[in-house]
């Protein structure tokens, strides 16, 4: 109440001064704008990799807008869904464009998010004090996967149907609650109209709401602690006489302009895909999905969309034989923990955990473990802030060990991704199994190699 009289009139907005003052006395417009844009000081050395955060937000908006227009014509009904998508493609004015924007946007979303996450891995953006930014980000990534999965059922093609069948059956594999859980998710004994209808509800309203809220939380946490940068320098430690970081520049106009440029380049690439190769060789839109869902016949080769394939490879890699290798690996991991100089209580907890895991290796099927390892492969990212024990954040000051580990991890992720798109072969399974070991080694061994690594001291200020 008091602020109505006390707040200073807005100046510098020309003819809008009066209106803005009226609003600002009733809503913290100017302070929000300052806090998050005009006076949000970001490090001055953002490079190419810092485009992908703003691009991810841009794609989120694009998906929401195109999605709204698609729902105007789409029918969430097993008898009509496939035909309504074809109707959008053929009969709705510009429907093909909106639909291709949405389908291209889905893959682009994951490309941008993967690059954004890789940026975090490179520059240690998950390290203290940014753990919560990383965790919110990971939850966004999980929600994005759910969003993509729910959305993929909607065209009701062969891949939609059998993809959903496989993913829902992942839950069915869980011990005790599995079958009932899968039944509850499907709402029927098979993937059916009931499943399609509820996936539609999740896809168009539930998950998008959560996503938007999480993006807000991600940004609020970021703006609370300030952005990291390629040097891993905390710019807030060196403030100028005006109280702002000397190595920071206001987000607006400097980075709003930079990010707008990024969006322009991105849109050019986006347009090339959307207009000339919307199926992207079967990776963005799978060919089998142009066949209506047939519950009696699985396509001869099914694979998830490319962004899930690294995890899919891990799922397929877990065979009974491979469980023995994993058991041996877990055993040696236990020995490693025993020999390391951790606190005693941690040691006990870790050892008990490993003993339980080893016992369960024999108690549960390889099928269940496939599902568990696939889940772990995603969830393990959450632990990164605590697994990385390096004294420095950025890869620029880390040594050869971390660089090789990160390089190898990227290669492994891509190789697993490739084999996840391919039919099962003995060679592919072997490679996926090696890939699975290396994938987990990157995380599980990080507390050791990040300490052993020879690092260089990080500078105090940006050059």
């Amino acid at each position: 109440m008091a602020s109505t009289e006390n707040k200073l009139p807005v100046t510098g907005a020309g003819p809008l001064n009066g209106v803005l003052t009226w609003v600002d006395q009733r809503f913290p417009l100017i302070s929000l704008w300052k806090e998050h844009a005009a006076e949000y000081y970001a490090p001055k050395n953002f490079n190419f990799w810092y485009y992908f955060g703003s691009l991810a937000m841009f794609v989120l908006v694009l998906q929401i807008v195109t999605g709204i227009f698609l729902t105007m014509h789409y029918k969430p009904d097993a008898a009509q869904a496939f035909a309504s998508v074809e109707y959008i493609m053929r009969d709705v004015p510009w429907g093909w464009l909106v639909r291709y924007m949405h389908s291209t946007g889905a893959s682009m979303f994951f490309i941008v998010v993967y690059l954004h996450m890789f940026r975090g891995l490179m520059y240690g953006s998950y390290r203290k004090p940014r753990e919560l930014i990383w965790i919110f980000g990971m939850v966004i990534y999980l929600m994005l996967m759910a969003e993509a999965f729910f959305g993929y059922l909607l065209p009701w093609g062969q891949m939609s149907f059998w993809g959903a069948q496989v993913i829902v059956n992942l839950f069915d594999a869980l011990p005790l609650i599995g079958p009932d859980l899968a039944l509850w998710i499907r709402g029927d004994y098979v993937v059916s109209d009931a499943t399609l209808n509820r996936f539609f509800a999740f896809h168009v309203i539930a998950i998008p709401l959560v996503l938007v809220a999480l993006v807000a939380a991600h940004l609020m946490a970021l703006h609370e602690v300030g952005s990291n940068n390629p040097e891993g320098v905390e710019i807030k430690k060196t403030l100028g006489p005006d109280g702002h970081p000397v190595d920071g520049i206001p987000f607006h106009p400097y980075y709003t302009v930079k990010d707008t440029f990024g969006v322009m380049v991105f849109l050019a690439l986006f347009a090339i895909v959307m207009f000339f190769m919307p199926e992207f060789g079967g990776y963005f839109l799978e060919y089998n999905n142009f066949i209506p869902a047939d519950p009696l016949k699985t396509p001869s080769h099914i694979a998830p969309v490319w962004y899930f394939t690294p995890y899919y490879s891990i799922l397929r890699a877990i065979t009974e034989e491979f469980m023995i290798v994993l058991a041996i690996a877990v055993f040696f991991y236990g020995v490693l923990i025993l020999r390391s100089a951790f606190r005693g209580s941690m040691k006990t907890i870790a050892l008990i955990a490993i003993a339980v895991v080893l016992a369960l290796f024999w108690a549960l099927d390889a099928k269940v473990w496939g599902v568990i390892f696939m889940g772990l492969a995603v969830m393990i990212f959450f632990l990164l802030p605590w697994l990385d024990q390096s004294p420095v954040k950025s890869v620029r000051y880390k040594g050869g060990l971390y660089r090789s580990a990160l390089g190898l991890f990227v290669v492994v992720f891509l190789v697993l991704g490739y084999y996840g798109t391919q039919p099962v072969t003995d060679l592919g399974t072997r490679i996926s199994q090696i890939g699975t070991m290396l994938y987990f080694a990157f995380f599980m061994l990080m507390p050791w190699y990040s300490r052993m690594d020879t690092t260089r001291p990080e500078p105090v200020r940006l050059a």
Partner: protein
Amino acid sequence: MAEKELDQGKRRFLLTATTVAAGGVAAGAAAVPFVASMLPSERAKAAGAPVEVDVSGLEPGQKMVVEWRGKPAWVVRRTPEMLKMVAADEERVADPDSKRSRQPAYAKNEMRSLKPEYLVVEGICTHLGCSPVDRLQSQPEAFAADWHGGFYCPCHGSLFDLAGRVYKNKPAPDNLPVPPYRFLSDTRLVIGEDTQGA
């Protein structure tokens, strides 16, 4: 009257705790209808009628697919050679006696069927629910050099023999389930019910 002095802190805590507990129970109870609304509807539960299959047109060595409860059910008319191949697979399958697999008691035998000639199974892989494809011929295949004929799951590479038994060291844990069924005559059978009326 010498009343004990009221402990305001304790009182406040008790009030807060009971309010939170009661509110929590109410919120939990309010969630029940929403969670339960996602369970299979009465209509979905009712749609599970048995189907009648005419196998008079099925030649030896052929397979037919019928829809039962929204899922594919297969009927394979096995030749004597095929039955020999099943017997020869004894060592290569994970659960030769179908001890841990799902089937009616009358199909818990080596050929997993009422009549050895006709195999009736649900065509849904016990791994993650894909429908395996036919590789009925006994010939070398990309996935197995000494293939005796059976089914190959395109999703994760599980292999099943001509009795629906899963091969060892494959992702699928169990044999293909056998639905309840019975023969109405030599060439007609009904899937989804048996003499026990299941």
